[in-house]
């Protein structure tokens, strides 16, 4: 019951109203005032974007660092290094053996060539080719001399 009495009394406060003249004057004043300038909004938008970009960049950097770190640690892992070193030694030895075998066959071929007394290098085809190249060399030499003489005459 007492609650109803209080609420009924409070309801009467709804009758409070502002002065009409005040309402009119304030309306005119407010509506002739400009809102926040667009440049300020653009600046705020720019700051927010820059902040978001910085956060994104930081996140990407952290992620990339985290992804690369295990590789680096694996690179410096002593056990892995030892295994790699041992494998490297074996590979070097195998390569050396292969090289020596190849060297032996080259030496034996060279010795055979020297011991061979037949003049295989006097093949007529080869000689003709050589002569042809010599002739072209001569022609080139002559042309050069002519060119030099002409240059001397002209200049």
């Amino acid at each position, binding site marked *: *019951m*007492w609650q109803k009495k209080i609420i009924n009394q409070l309801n009467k406060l709804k009758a409070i*109203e502002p002065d009409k003249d005040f309402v009119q004057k304030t*309306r005119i004043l407010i*509506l002739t*005032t400009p809102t926040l300038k667009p440049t300020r909004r653009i600046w705020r938008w720019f700051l927010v974007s820059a902040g978001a970009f910085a956060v994104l960049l930081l996140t990407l950097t952290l992620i990339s660092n985290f992804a690369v770190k295990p590789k680096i640690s694996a690179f410096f892992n002593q056990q892995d290094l030892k295994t790699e070193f041992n494998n490297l030694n074996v590979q070097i030895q195998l390569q050396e053996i292969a090289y020596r075998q190849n060297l032996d066959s080259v030496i034996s071929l060279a010795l055979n060539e020297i011991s061979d007394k037949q003049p295989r290098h006097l093949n007529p085809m080869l000689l003709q080719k050589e002569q042809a190249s010599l002739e072209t060399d001569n022609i080139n030499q002559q042309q050069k001399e002519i060119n030099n003489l002409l240059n001397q005459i002209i200049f």
Partner: protein
Amino acid sequence: MEEEKLIKKAQNGEPEAFGLLYDKYVAKIYRFVFLKVGQRADAEDLTQQVFLNAWQNINNFRWQGFPFSSWLYKIATNAVIDYYRQQKIQIDLESVTETLTVTAETSDFDRALNLKNIWAAVAKLEPDQQNIIILKFVEKMNNKEIAAILGKSEGAIRVSQHRALKKIKEYVAEENNQPIK
């Protein structure tokens, strides 16, 4: 025209759209502020400040399903807090009840006196409880809207409202040396 459309137009820089929103809510905001500060001149200044602030920051308003008035009441609540922080002025009870007598044309002295006592009790409440009493029993808002304005849960509003009414009863009884039945 729908309120949401008016807000969008106002956000697009149409002052007349904001003017219509102003016409709709100026009396409510004035009343709320006046009941909080108890001075006509201060209430007018604060009301003007609230609407000016709302108009200048209209682009920050985001529609969240509550009436535009919720946003205005939030601005008004902050304005009143700043007002008390700066001036430390007590509510002038005479001014509140005199204004009511003139505006509502109430001739019954006993009723005005009762209201004066009740308002004296309301003035003793915590600021949040005062807000709830005004928004609930003067402006007849529902708990959901009040909760959105004051940033509290509906349950908290219900509890505060109950406690506030009980306190009003106690203060009035103390003042008159007799319990209200």
